[in-house]
């Protein structure tokens, strides 16, 4: 009985309806939080005493980096749900996560490089966080490559789900091995943010941006997943009815 709500997710019409209803509830707050965070971060927050205005890129960089990891976790979790309960919708969600996650990872990398140019004097530093972010991007690309390479949809779903789960087990190991490798090769990086010493005027916009990015991801995911469900169920009767109604 208690699992009815869970199994209802497995029904494409139910999921499609729910996703359509929920998307604006995530999209609009995401926009508002993003605007507030940007005003706070770019306008109101004081310049950093060492980095001047250069630190402001953190308001895009940190949320993107946070999401690059979170999206992978969401992807692996929904892939696992799809694999275990053979839930087509969960596979659709996992498939929708990959391009979003790869984009956030690329965004985090690019903003990190742009920040590194004035701060470190070079676009690319073999910093552990940059390196593991790059490896994460490769994991996303591998996942998407595997999906693309397999023609049969059901098989692509399940094979890529196994890959996502193997990847999520490996991500922490890769991260710590890269950190460890780096600490042996070079001195600690030039500058690091002193996290606890960040004043509230800087921290609050960052938190707003984090929340805004997360909600934006959910709205984006719901939209993409709807598209994915549409593609998969293009011959179903409920789909035609739903499309006629809109």
């Amino acid at each position: 009985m208690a699992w009815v709500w869970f199994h209802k997710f497995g029904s494409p019409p139910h999921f499609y309806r729910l996703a359509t209803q929920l998307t604006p509830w995530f999209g609009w707050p995401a926009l508002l939080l993003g605007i507030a965070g940007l005003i706070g971060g770019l306008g109101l927050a004081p310049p950093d005493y060492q980095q001047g205005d250069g630190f402001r890129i953190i308001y895009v960089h940190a949320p993107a980096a946070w999401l690059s990891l979170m999206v992978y976790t969401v992807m692996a979790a929904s892939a696992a749900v799809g694999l275990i309960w053979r839930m087509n919708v969960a596979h659709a969600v996992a498939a929708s996560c990959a391009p979003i996650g790869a984009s956030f990872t690329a965004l985090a990398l690019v903003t990190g490089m742009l920040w590194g140019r004035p701060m470190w004097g070079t676009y690319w530093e073999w910093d552990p966080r940059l390196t593991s972010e790059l490896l994460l991007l490769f994991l996303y690309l591998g996942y998407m490559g595997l999906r693309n390479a397999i023609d049969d949809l059901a098989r692509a779903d399940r094979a890529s789900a196994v890959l996502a789960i193997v990847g999520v087990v490996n991500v922490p190991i890769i991260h710590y091995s890269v950190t460890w490798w780096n600490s042996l090769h070079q001195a600690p990086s030039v500058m690091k943010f002193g996290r606890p010493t960040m004043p509230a005027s800087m921290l609050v916009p960052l938190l707003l941006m984090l929340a805004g990015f997360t909600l934006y991801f959910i709205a984006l995911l719901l939209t993409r997943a709807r598209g994915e469900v549409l593609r998969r169920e293009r011959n179903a009767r409920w789909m035609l009815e739903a499309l006629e109604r809109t």
Partner: protein
Amino acid sequence: MSAARIGFLSAAALLAARDLRLALRRAGDTLLPLGFFLVITTLFPLSLDPSLSLLRDIAPAALWVGALLSSLLALDLLFRDDGQDGTLEQLALCAQPFAGLLLAKTVVHWCLTGLPLVLVAPLAASALGAPNAAMPGILAGVLLGTIALSLIGAVGAGLTLTLRRNGSLLALLVLPLAVPVLIFGARATALSIAGASPAAPLYLLAAFAVFAATLAPWALAAAVRIGIE
């Protein structure tokens, strides 16, 4: 099944013996990755100034990048023929644990492609200027590293089982997952060459190999089942 049920270990041993016999009949194919490894490690000195100190510096990189690429190349041998002629389907249908049988196949694969690498690694290392005192560390590192690489690679090979041209995709899937092996292995080799104790990276490498041996068979079985269904 009219024949008496046999235990898992005998079944695995039979499978291993069969794989070994097949591999020995086409010894040329089996030894190709080894030749590839030797060529790669030769290319490094040729593309650089062959002074001893420089060679010593790049020896870990040459050895481990060579080992990584050669193990990637060897993965083609692991499931390709058995996938095409239906052997894997028979294995999946038989009453033995599929993950265990695939682990047995992977162990044989390691004996055929990983073990030769372990035996040749000291040769390549000394050609790259590694002192004799470094050999135990290098041997242990390559031994543990190739075990981990075979296991990770097997999962990748299982996932790409049904794809016709899978070489570059396989590389994209496997190489990021093999980064820890590369880091710890190259570190152990570098420490050995420098005359320091490689114990710390070797322990980590061993931990990673054990971890892979514990979990990879299940992922492997799931991947191959999806491929042959």
